[in-house]
């Protein structure tokens, strides 16, 4: 299209990067949060805080009380699924879940007494994960994110093509150089050093949703797409009998289950309370890259072993390895933190790319939009602020809303989400009103204050805070809050750079006449 291949790639990188960069930043920052989805949910429901200073009851006992609660509250009907998740890893509490009339129910139980623990109503970290791949807009959102992922991949490829000095500049970051040079170095170095992560996370994100992104092939051979899962995951479900029956204490099956599959992280009871009831124990997905959980099934009425699955169809295993690589549930906190760092650096890559677009044109306007150029550049500056700082502040305001809204506030979880979405709008309006660099600085300072004052607010308002998390040995909630504080520190490093750029900036942009 241009004179040479690499000029064409530069054009593609610039414009695709700009137009999709805004969306990609929001997708990457929420995806980065999603690594710690359960930790964030736990932090957003501090009433359910763990007290790690007292010892937890035995797992058998926890299964027993959870089962008792489900037998009392969950529906006994055909096709019912009751789920029990044990505390451990990122899941801090004993949880039971079921669906009734299409509505999901989720209750946290006290592992000792089996009494429900009242938690504040929130969508927690799950909202950020949802946003990451649906933009809270369902299927349409997923398709938009999918297209953005294709563009991301093309951005990476075209970026490699136009870089040309990948190995020579492998470690080069001339922080003190001219504004444009230092941003370009930051963009290049973060892209090159994170390239394996970037390629992996983008590609796996595309691959993991065949039903949405590539339905033709799937539907050509499967009338019911769910049967695909059935060809990979063995089911031990029994036909519904329709006769009520007493169930065994599933906790007693635990030794046998552990012998079959090694460890147990959660259990599912199908057709609970019926003569056909089956209990299935799952080993969790943390021990390998592929997101598959070995499982073993027993009759929940007689306790008889029905079968187990510890071997997987090769193709399904390969596919679930791609999924596993994306959702990063393996390798414990080490891998979680590596993904989190990879995510933050990727966000930096996208943000520096967006900033570069405007910095180049601040110096030497290119008149790319004809007579409207000055106004369009102005709009792009504002959208950059709204995409980058708007996303960061939206997440922080979401956290704040969780602490500020009264616990019994009607529809409080909806209001948390509204606060999240509204922040973007406010951020954009602010960026349109203020001069570009001033709005960058204002919003960076706001984010910094939001980070640093959050623990202070929690403490002043008498809510669980850093201190109480520490005292209870609740490392997860403590970690979330410390990470927010550290993120504030990271933001504070941007302020001197912004101030120095502001001083050197001409007050009025001159646009080259057409």
């Amino acid at each position, binding site marked *: *299209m241009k004179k040479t*291949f690499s000029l*064409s*790639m530069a*054009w*593609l990188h610039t414009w695709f990067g700009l137009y999709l960069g805004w969306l990609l930043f929001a997708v990457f920052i929420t995806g980065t949060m999603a690594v710690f989805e359960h930790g964030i949910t736990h932090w957003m429901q501090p009433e359910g805080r763990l007290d790690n200073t007292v010892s937890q009851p035995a797992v058998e006992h926890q299964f027993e009380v959870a089962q008792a609660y489900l037998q009392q509250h969950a529906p006994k009907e055909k096709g019912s699924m009751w789920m029990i998740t044990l505390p451990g890893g990122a899941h801090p509490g004993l949880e039971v879940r079921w669906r009734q009339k299409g509505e999901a129910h989720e209750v946290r139980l006290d592992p000792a007494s089996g009494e429900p623990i009242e938690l504040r109503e929130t969508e927690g970290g799950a909202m950020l994960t949802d946003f990451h791949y649906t933009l809270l807009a369902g299927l349409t959102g997923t398709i938009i994110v999918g*297209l953005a992922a*294709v*563009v991301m*991949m*093309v951005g990476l*490829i*075209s970026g490699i093509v136009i870089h040309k000095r990948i190995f020579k500049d492998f470690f080069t970051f001339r922080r003190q150089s001219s504004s444009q040079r230092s941003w370009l170095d930051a963009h290049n170095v973060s892209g090159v050093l994170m390239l394996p992560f970037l390629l992996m996370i983008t*590609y796996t994100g*595309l*691959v993991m949703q*065949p039903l949405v*992104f*590539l339905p*033709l*092939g*799937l539907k*050509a*051979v*499967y009338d019911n797409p769910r049967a*695909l899962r059935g*060809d*990979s995951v063995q089911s031990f479900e029994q036909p519904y009998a329709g006769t009520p029956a007493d169930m065994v204490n599933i906790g007693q099956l635990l030794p046998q289950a552990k012998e079959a599959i090694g460890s147990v992280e959660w259990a599912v009871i199908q057709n609970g309370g019926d003569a056909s009831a089956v209990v299935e124990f799952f080993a969790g997905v943390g021990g390998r890259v592929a997101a598959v959980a070995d499982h073993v099934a027993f009759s929940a009425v007689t306790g008889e072993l029905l079968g187990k699955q510890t071997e997987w*169809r*090769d*193709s*399904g295993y*390969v*596919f679930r390895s*791609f999924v596993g690589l994306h959702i990063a549930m393996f390798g414990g906190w080490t891998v979680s933190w590596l993904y989190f760092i990879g995510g933050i650096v990727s966000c930096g890559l996208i943000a520096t790319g967006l900033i570069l677009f405007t910095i180049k044109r601040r110096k030497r306007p290119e008149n790319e939009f004809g007579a409207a150029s000055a106004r369009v550049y102005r709009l792009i500056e504002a959208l950059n602020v709204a995409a980058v700082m708007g996303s960061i502040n939206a997440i922080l305001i979401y956290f704040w809303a969780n602490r500020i809204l009264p616990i019994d506030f009607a529809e409080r979880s909806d209001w948390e989400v509204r606060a999240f979405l509204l922040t973007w709008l406010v951020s954009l309006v602010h960026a349109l009103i203020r001069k570009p660099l001033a709005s960058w600085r204002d919003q960076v300072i706001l984010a910094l204050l939001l980070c640093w004052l959050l623990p202070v607010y929690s403490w002043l308002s008498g809510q669980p805070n850093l201190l109480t998390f520490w005292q209870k040995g609740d490392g997860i909630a403590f970690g979330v809050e410390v990470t927010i504080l550290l993120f504030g520190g990271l933001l504070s490093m941007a302020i001197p750079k912004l101030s120095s750029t502001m001083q050197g900036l001409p007050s009025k942009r001159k646009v080259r006449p057409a």
Partner: protein
Amino acid sequence: MKASADISLRVLAAFIGGYLLTALANLAWVLSWPGHRADAVYYGTLFPWLIYFAVMIWAFSARSALKVWAVILAVAGGLLSWVALAWYLK
């Protein structure tokens, strides 16, 4: 051709043409797979994306936007006949 028409043709080729070939390649793969259908679907979702990236890059580097579309349509035609044949043989 006007520059705006040229760019629009390329954007459409990149996004729609690219998806068309990706989806058809996926379909052709699944229908031609000799083994179990689950293997066909699982393996078939892993690789067609490479076609999407290639088409997108080519759509913006080729000399002529019309040529891009001509090739996309020709390849799509080829894939479609393949799909039809595979469907018929199944």
